[in-house]
């Protein structure tokens, strides 16, 4: 089975059938925002949601991840490679799935990161297609993440009374086969899905003032653009833009020794290029001393360096960095200013 149909009324019982496959995490309302949280009952979730404060990244690349135990005297270290339990991410938007695909590339690069890969192996992704913009901050059409392009086990498309199911893996197949209330998609359903998709595409337009080819060129020429000075003057250095990014993967490694002063735990914790001392070295030099240089670095990491290294844009268009910025630094505006290149020469 490749495509299937489930009635909206049956979503609750399908959700219940997933429970014995592992812990389920889904989007939930928190004050004026949304967050991924463990979900017990289907009704707890808000499937109509704008991107969560933190991306689901926290489940496969946690904020603070235990790595190993060590002893100082006599010196010994525990096993660094760990096993994890099955878990399901439910209702993940295509932009966040694109984020997972970026992380896959990074952590698969040699030497591969076993902790990430072991976690990833236990992860089941049930995606949820967006049929319209979540809000004005998203730029998913520009980077092409408004449509699904793999990286999930199941993709759900809301067709009103029912959901279309796209099965994209063996794991996904196991979650839907043998259920009486899930039927294979027929020609009529397929037509309905195609029509919904066409309608959807009409709503999405490139948010940038130029195609990716022009953006490549703008980044090539734009290293000394006054755009970065402007960002540097407005940025408060709170680091929120990097904290909420689904493709930021920098981390620091810290040792915490217990009070007996002999046993310790090693952790990896998120670390950001927007931190004041991120590029400071022991001799006192700071390779990116200004907030302008740090902001520029962030943009180049998303639109140029990652293209050179992995042939991939590391911006998923989720809009989180713009949404979270208290200085109202907008990714779309920055890119468009860079594209205009008015002052850049």
């Amino acid at each position, binding site marked *: 089975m490749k495509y299937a149909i489930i009635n909206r009324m049956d979503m609750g019982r399908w959700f219940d059938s997933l429970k014995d496959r592992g812990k389920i995490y889904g989007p939930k309302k*928190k*004050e*004026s*925002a949304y*967050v991924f949280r463990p979900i017990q009952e289907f009704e707890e979730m808000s499937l109509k949601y704008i991107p969560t*404060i*933190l991306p689901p990244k*926290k489940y496969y690349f946690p*904020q*603070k991840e235990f790595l190993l135990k060590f002893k100082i005297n006599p010196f010994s270290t525990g096993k660094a490679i760990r096993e994890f339990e099955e878990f399901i991410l439910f209702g993940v938007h295509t932009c966040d799935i694109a984020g997972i695909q970026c992380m896959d590339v990074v952590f698969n690069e040699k030497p591969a990161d076993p902790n990430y890969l072991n976690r990833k192996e236990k992860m089941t992704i049930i995606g949820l297609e967006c049929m319209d913009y979540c809000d004005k901050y998203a730029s998913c059409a520009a980077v092409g993440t408004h449509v699904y392009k793999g990286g999930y086990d199941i993709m759900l498309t809301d067709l009103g009374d029912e959901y279309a199911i796209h099965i994209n893996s063996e794991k996904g197949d196991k979650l839907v086969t043998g259920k009486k209330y899930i039927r294979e998609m027929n020609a009529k359903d397929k037509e309905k899905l195609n029509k919904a998709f066409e309608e959807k595409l009409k709503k999405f337009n490139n948010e940038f003032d130029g195609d990716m080819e022009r953006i490549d060129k703008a980044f090539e020429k734009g290293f000394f653009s006054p755009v970065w000075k402007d960002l*540097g*003057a*407005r*940025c*408060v*250095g*709170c*680091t*929120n833009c990097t*904290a*909420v990014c689904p493709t930021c993967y920098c981390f620091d490694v810290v040792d*915490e*020794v*217990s*009070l*007996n*002063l002999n046993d310790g735990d090693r952790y990896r914790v*998120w670390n*950001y290029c927007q*931190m*004041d*001392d991120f590029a400071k070295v022991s001799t006192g030099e*700071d390779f990116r*001393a*200004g*907030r*302008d240089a740090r902001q520029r670095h962030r943009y180049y990491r998303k639109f140029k360096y990652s293209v050179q290294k992995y042939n991939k844009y590391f911006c998923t268009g989720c809009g989180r960095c713009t949404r*979270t910025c*208290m*200085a*109202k630094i907008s990714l779309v505006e920055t890119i468009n200013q860079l594209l205009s290149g008015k002052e850049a020469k």
Partner: protein
Amino acid sequence: MSKPKPKVAFFEFTDCEGCQLQVANLGASLLELAKVVDIVNFREIMSEAGEEYDVLVVEGSVASKHDEERLKKIASKAKVIVAMGACATIGGVNNLKNLKPLAEQKKAVYGSVDPVPDAIETKSIDEVVHVDYYVHGCPIYGPEFLKVMECVLLGKPYNVPQYPVCVECKQNENVCAYEKGQFCLGPVTKAGCNSWLPNYGSVCVGCRGLIDNPAADAQKDILQKYGLTVEGILDKFTLYCNGKKERAKYGKESQK
């Protein structure tokens, strides 16, 4: 075979002793700590007082000539000095005294009598003696105090985070106070408290002191954007970030 346990003494100066209370409230962790150190002086939890110690934990700021001399005397016996709590590390709330000339403040508080003839301008501990370790906050955050004590005992430095509270707040996935129309000092305040106040729905009040390079201009822009007046903003900063060290940081309009 085992080395003698280092002796630790807690002394308080001008303050509320709330930070010592935080230490007393550590519960099981305090008992763990007591296994590796000898606590020889700690007014809030013990009646006897020892005269000798290796590690001196100072709480409170220096507010009189007497304080100053006492601190120097106490410090001279210690191998390591830990400043504990905002009063000790940055002067804390006591800095409010320095906003006006001493004579004027005394008159406002005591009227025509002067019960503290030796009062001086408030000083943080490091304006009088050398400080090796800082535990910021009003009050201190218990888990950070334990982390600092581990570093003291292992003889390694403790690096106070140089990034703002936002880092921890965002990792805790709190809804930003600015989003709720509140004014929060998180973006310019040193982290290390695990965004203690925002986790409970309150805003950061800046008790840990400013980060080394607060983006002063950008911050002012934002506050004005959110409809706050310059006076209102300064009021918020005055509570904790009014000491000499803090003022110097905010004064430098660096691009860093």
